[in-house]
């Protein structure tokens, strides 16, 4: 197990390094010139050059990468002379658009995205799994049919439509405080404010994801129910409740863990559309604005890298959890 863990950790680390290098390369070789794009209104060649120096783009790309990696471990200085300042480690660069160390920006955006992700994750798991189990137990009954309808609607409604419809309905019926909408409220200071801020985006994401999970849970429960060991459990005289809880669900939900982990990781990287519809200052909005509006390279690099880290880390966590749940995997 330890050896397996070590091997997986190394592989994970390698993937992260690779992703960071390739993201760095991709954005360096783009025909976009951040120095020019952020040059401003009085843009002369001298200003562009000054800008390039300011952004640290006047050195070869490998030097830029080394500076970037070094910054992660020891921090990094920006500017010269009296205007010099530094971002402490782990420094992912400095956003000259937002006048803030990228690490700080991410640290501010992450709780928002995490709140969005965790809330909708719990909501869709609760709804999806319970609806799926219910539908599986009551095959062909109205619960099953209703859940099928729910699945179809959820699957067929892109979030950019459902999110906007939810927002517009909320506006129409004055369900939101418009001026406070999307503002970050710490759940530790004001849990109700926090939840009421996130309830619409949670619903939007949960609607889309819960559908998939309902479908998946239903088919897994039905499939598991026909397993021999469930028949064995029944032959032992166990009640249906115990069989479902202890025998069926554990086996049926194990594969869901894998998907859930990846979906959750994907959301942690930023739910771009939902965050933008509901004006949530999370990683998704940070990254999309960095790309489309500001062309803020340090932010783009950091958020992309972070998203990849979430995915590979979550992959690792899921594998470890899976080994915990399914003893057959452990020996491998």
């Amino acid at each position: 197990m330890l050896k397996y863990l070590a091997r997986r950790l190394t592989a994970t680390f390698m993937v992260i390094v690779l992703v960071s290098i390739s993201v760095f390369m991709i954005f360096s070789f783009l025909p976009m010139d951040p120095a020019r794009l952020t040059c401003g209104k009085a843009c002369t060649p001298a200003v562009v050059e000054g800008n390039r120096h300011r952004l640290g783009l006047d050195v070869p790309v490998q030097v830029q990468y080394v500076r970037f990696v070094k910054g992660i471990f020891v921090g990094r200085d920006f500017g010269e002379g009296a205007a010099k300042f530094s971002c402490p480690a782990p420094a992912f660069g400095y956003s000259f658009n937002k006048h803030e160390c990228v690490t700080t920006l991410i640290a501010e955006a992450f709780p928002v995205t995490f709140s969005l992700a965790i809330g909708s994750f719990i909501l869709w798991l609760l709804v999806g799994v319970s609806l799926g189990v219910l539908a599986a137990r009551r095959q062909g009954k109205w619960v099953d049919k209703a859940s099928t309808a729910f699945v179809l609607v959820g699957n067929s409604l892109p979030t950019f439509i459902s999110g906007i419809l939810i927002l517009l309905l909320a506006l129409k019926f004055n369900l939101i405080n418009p001026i406070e909408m999307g503002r970050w409220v710490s759940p530790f200071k004001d849990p109700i404010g926090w939840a009421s801020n996130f309830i619409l985006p949670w619903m939007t994401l949960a609607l889309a994801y819960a559908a998939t999970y309902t479908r998946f849970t239903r088919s897994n429960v039905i499939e598991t129910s026909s397993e021999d060991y469930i028949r064995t459990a029944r032959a032992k005289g166990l009640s249906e409740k115990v069989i479902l809880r202890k025998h069926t669900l554990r086996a049926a939900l194990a594969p869901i863990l894998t998907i859930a982990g990846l979906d959750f990781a994907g959301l942690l990287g930023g739910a771009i559309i939902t965050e933008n519809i509901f004006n949530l200052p999370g990683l998704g909005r940070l990254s999309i604005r960095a790309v489309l509006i500001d062309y803020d390279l340090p932010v783009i690099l950091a958020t992309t890298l972070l998203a990849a880290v979430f995915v590979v880390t979550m992959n690792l966590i899921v594998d470890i959890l899976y080994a915990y749940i399914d003893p057959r995997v452990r020996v491998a």
Partner: protein
Amino acid sequence: MSQVDLIEDESATASIVQRTPRQIAWTRFKRNKVGVLSAAVAIFFILGAYLAPLITRVMGLSSTKTYPKTLNDYAMPIGHAGGISLSHPLGVEPGAGRDLLSLLLYGSRISFTVAFIVSVASIGLGMLIGITTGYFRGKLDAIVGRFSDFLLSFPGTFMIIALALPLRERVEALGIARDNGARIIVLIFFFVFFGWPGFARLIRSQAFSMRERDFVMAAQALGASSWRIITRELLPNLWPTAIVFLSISLPGYLAAEAVFSFLGVGVQAPASTFGLVLSDAVTYWRDDPAYLIIPSMYLIIIVLSLNLLGDAIRDALDPKAVAG
């Protein structure tokens, strides 16, 4: 579908119908009323999309023409429900005054085309790579496996948004295509690039287990070449998986295309797609709700019918899979 709880009496059912799997699938499919209906709806919309020039011509409409007379001084449609009239059955677009039906017909043509090409291409690629790696295993498998891990850990959506514009410039500079042609090519490229690993993984695991099955072993024992085994033994057994995957991914890519043009990195005006129409419609929701509702419904019906069709196909091809 009903639950045939035969436990170990498979032979009972097996002996009922002595037909080819394809015939069985077809019979099963025909029996699924929802499936048949959704197939009809899907075909209706697909035909609508590809016969758009004909339909609009018959109706005397054009997707590129503006109808200034349908708009008032502030470019809002005259009349009820977004200017629905005999000549404009779904109303007109506020602002520019194009016919909404024509826009949606032509828009769905782009969406269908992108979705079809992407689905087929990523399935083709995934199939090729999945079979090859699953069958030959070894070093190739390891390399491709790591590469697809790497791709899967990439934030794809975000990369598409970030790279769509510069890549389009590349495509145009190379003279492959221009404007929307280039944009569509870029979108297709990205969808396929990030889409194949998932399918390849699925196929790989199937090819992997099939490799150990008797009929492949038998073929190997008879000295059949790898090529022959792959084309004659593996492929025919994998095509149901491919069909099922196709039916699932088609509506997915259709919606994805809408999302990206909504985000402004897909197809652009003067062409029109669902994403463009909807992102525009959102600003008019108060004054012209029909303009938001009609295209939304149009898209939802298409995606819904394709989803239902996909379920029906899956049920027909794989009776063990229980559709949700």
